[in-house]
């Protein structure tokens, strides 16, 4: 029953979404790759699409994966699954959120969740890095023109991000760079 699987999988992801989209990637990666719903390259492509469209990453990715694997009904199941945990939690806490937020155990948990979220973003960095650069290591590593060009794009876009460039501008420019490399015959697909 794909619809139930989608709902439960994204409910699980939704229940452990702390610290935003990039911290969710290891969770999503684990579930989505294991179910064969998308490849890592497709997930990274979708990160860029989600960055350029409105709405939080959690909702965007669940709609996309649901849509791909089981059409509109699949998208509805996955999206309601990802939203349900926070919906239920806020309903329960709506009357007592002050006591909840200021409780010592909640503050303590948050103290541990922040470094955890930070580490999850770092593991996203590693897995996206591997996705982008591992093709160059597949047999024996040789410095190819494509590798140098990719490294150049990487250095420039990272510098742009540090200088607080708009994320969409970074995406558009790196897309343009990809098209230039491709039409120059450097990318083999």
């Amino acid at each position, binding site marked *: 029953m794909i619809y139930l699987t989608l709902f439960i999988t994204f409910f699980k992801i939704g229940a452990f979404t702390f610290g935003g989209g990039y911290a969710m990637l290891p969770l999503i990666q684990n579930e989505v790759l294991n179910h064969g719903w998308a490849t890592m390259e497709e997930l990274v492509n979708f990160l860029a699409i989600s960055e350029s469209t409105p709405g939080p990453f959690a909702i965007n990715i669940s709609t996309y994966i649901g849509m791909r694997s089981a059409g509109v009904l699949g998208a509805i199941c996955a999206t309601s699954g990802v939203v349900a945990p926070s919906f239920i939690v806020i309903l329960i806490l709506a009357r007592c959120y002050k006591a909840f937020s200021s409780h010592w155990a909640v503050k303590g948990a948050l103290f541990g969740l922040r470094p955890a979220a930070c580490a999850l973003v770092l593991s996203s960095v590693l897995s996206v890095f591997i996705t*982008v650069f591992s093709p160059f290591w597949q047999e024996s590593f040789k410095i190819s023109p494509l590798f140098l060009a990719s490294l150049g794009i990487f250095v420039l876009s990272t510098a742009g991000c540090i200088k607080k460039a708009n994320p969409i501008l970074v995406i558009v420019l790196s897309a343009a760079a990809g098209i230039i490399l491709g039409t120059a015959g450097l990318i083999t697909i």
Partner: protein
Amino acid sequence: MLPLIQHEVVDKNRYITYEELVDMISLSESTPGSLAVNVATFVGYKQYGFLGAAAATLGVVVPSFVIIAVLSFFIEAFKENKIVSFAFYGIRIGVLSLIINAFMSIYKSFKKTPVNVFLIVLTFLCVAVFKINAIIMLIFCAAAGVIRAFITGRESLK
């Protein structure tokens, strides 16, 4: 996103007070889900109970749902297109930079106490190297935080 929420929910419609919005922002940190969804559920509940919460949450989800549902057709249709593939080759590199940048701003945002650094290194090694489920590490770190708070005393958190 926050200025927009504040404008619509506090200033224009007066669904909740500014103080309640600030409380929601801190509550959002310690509950799952994104701020927009959490605020929508809370505001809806305060206005019309469960039905209000359901309506407001649906409202905040529908725009991105529709956009992505429509876009997913185009993503599939252009999957085999060479130019699109070339563009995504470059885009994946750009996304790597965006995530590195996100990591740096999160890393800068909290104190590098020995416990924090230990939890970061441990979680990273477990998830990225030993392929332990991220959910287990989130539970572990939250529990470690609670135990730490219990040992060091509740006053240290104030």
